[in-house]
């Protein structure tokens, strides 16, 4: 029997902050277990965006009028707030559309432009397409070698393989902090030490970690870190690249246009200081304001408390999946090695069939390849079902998933 879990957070009060959680889906209360895809938004974030447009909207870094100045202040205040959230210097914080664009920026302006033919980029077998395809593109263009650290059967990285690959001519390691499929939290301390010892820089895809656990770029000692606003209660369309000053100052621009220049003639241009050098065109100011509000919201509750809450939910989730039986869980079972994102297969039932049956009773999970086709090939499955938690997830919702999976087994006679 599974013991009822005690909620360390006041989850009922938190849930009241998220209007969408009152929705019914197909006649049943929404059970939202797809926060790894995108999280729901609290009223404070929705209101911050609305209030910005109602009271302060103007273009930023242009002109002298007061409203423009107010908008610029809101934008730069947002930059400082988001930098504080990851313990970073705001001068190294570049706003992008999302994690994908942040990683493409590093691939285009660092890997493609600053590495030499024959240099090696190392990724892992568990990467999201957004932390694989940009490096493939850069490698093809710049004659770089691309290698992937192998995955072990328990869903963790083969550190012997990492040691083998993190040697010259490796110049860059780009690795996910927490797998969006397996939930594995990678040993970044060891990987970073190995990479730096080999003279390589370290780029971290933190899309699945920054929203769920305290992340400090100083402690990680990485060189680049990318994440998205929409996976941490913030709006869609805003992402972050943080980088150390050394590579950032040396890198050529990613895109050209307004804001990123210092002086322009018909033939030549010179570049603005970082981070503005990498922010061409009018930015999504409202989303920066919304993301700053999301940082406040999360910090008020506390990332450590959120992380503990999710660990408890993950334990319950793993227990429920094990109790039901005939379920293959992918990724580590050790709670110290994983986050609140669990992928699994129910017998031979395809993930889409699982997803459809769950959706009929309002349970939202992700079903598919999760933008990780090489990982699916490694796991030997076409697709998986993924349930993921966040600060508003309740133990009852985990139990509802369990009932839904029992129904899947009944329909498909597993």
């Amino acid at each position, binding site marked *: 029997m599974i013991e009822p879990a005690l909620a360390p957070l006041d989850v009922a009060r938190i849930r009241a902050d998220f209007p969408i959680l009152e929705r019914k889906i*197909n*006649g*049943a*209360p929404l*059970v939202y277990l797809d926060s790894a895809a995108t999280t729901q938004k609290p009223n404070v974030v929705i209101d911050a965006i609305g209030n910005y447009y109602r009271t302060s909207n103007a273009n930023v870094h242009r002109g002298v009028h007061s409203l423009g100045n107010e908008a610029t202040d809101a934008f730069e205040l947002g930059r400082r707030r988001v930098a504080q959230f990851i313990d970073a210097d705001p001068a190294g914080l570049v706003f992008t559309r999302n994690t994908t664009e942040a990683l493409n920026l590093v691939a285009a302006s660092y890997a493609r432009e600053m590495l030499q033919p024959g240099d090696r980029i190392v990724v892992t077998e568990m990467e999201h397409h957004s932390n694989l395809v940009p490096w493939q593109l850069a490698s093809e263009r710049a004659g770089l070698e691309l290698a992937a650290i192998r995955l072990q059967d328990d869903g963790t990285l083969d550190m012997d393989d990492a040691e083998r690959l993190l040697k010259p001519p490796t110049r860059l390691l780009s690795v996910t902090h927490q797998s969006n499929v397996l939930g594995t939290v990678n040993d970044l301390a060891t990987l970073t030490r190995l990479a730096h010892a080999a003279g390589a820089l370290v780029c971290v895809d933190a899309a699945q970690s920054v929203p769920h656990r305290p992340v400090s770029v100083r402690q990680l000692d990485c060189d680049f870190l990318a994440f998205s606003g929409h996976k941490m209660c913030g709006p869609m369309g805003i992402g972050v690249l943080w980088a150390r000053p050394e590579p950032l100052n040396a890198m050529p621009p990613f895109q050209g246009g307004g804001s990123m220049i210092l002086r322009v003639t018909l033939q030549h241009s010179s570049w603005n200081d970082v981070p503005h050098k990498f922010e061409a065109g009018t930015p999504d100011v409202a989303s920066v304001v919304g993301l700053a509000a999301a940082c406040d919201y999360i910090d008020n509750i506390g990332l450590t408390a959120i992380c503990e809450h999710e660990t408890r939910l993950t334990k319950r989730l793993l227990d429920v999946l094990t109790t039901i039986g005939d379920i293959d869980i992918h990724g580590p079972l050790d709670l110290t090695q994983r986050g609140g994102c669990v992928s699994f297969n129910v017998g031979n*039932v*395809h*993930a*889409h*069939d699982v997803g*459809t*049956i769950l959706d*009929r*009773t*309002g*349970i939202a999970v992700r*079903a*598919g*390849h999760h933008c990780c*086709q090489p990982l*699916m090939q490694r796991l030997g499955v*076409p*697709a998986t079902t993924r349930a993921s938690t966040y600060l508003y997830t309740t133990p*009852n919702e985990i*139990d*509802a998933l369990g*009932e*839904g999976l*029992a*129904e899947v087994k009944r*329909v*498909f*006679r597993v």
Partner: protein
Amino acid sequence: MVGFSNTTPVEDDLYREIVLEHYSHPRHRGELETASSRVDATNPLCGDELSLAWRVEGGRISGIAFSGRGCSISMASASMLCEALDGQDMATAADIAARFRSMLLDKGPSDGLGDLEALRGVAAYPVRIKCAVLAWNALLQELAGTAETEP
């Protein structure tokens, strides 16, 4: 708490018995060595992969087979396609395919579609329609291409 017993229909509108039966015991599954036409279909969104092959003799489909992997709806639909089209002349095959698509996409009539009617319930699940029509779209695409090259 969410109670399944109150919300799940007794008779499953999507996973009809005959659909699940085709899924667990697919007909015409395998390779067709003597195929005259072969077409691959993929659904990059869900990773479904399907190959359909058939042989035409005297204007009729004299052999048909599919292989691949995917969800119950895409696999059952491919199995039912093979069963429905085996032995048919090409005009009838194209007509069945068009009517099957119409049943799902335009909620058109299912008269004369036989077992294929069992997939009608998919129409109520918009995200799953693409699974049901995967094999059929591939077939129609190939037939259209063949028609163009053989005026």
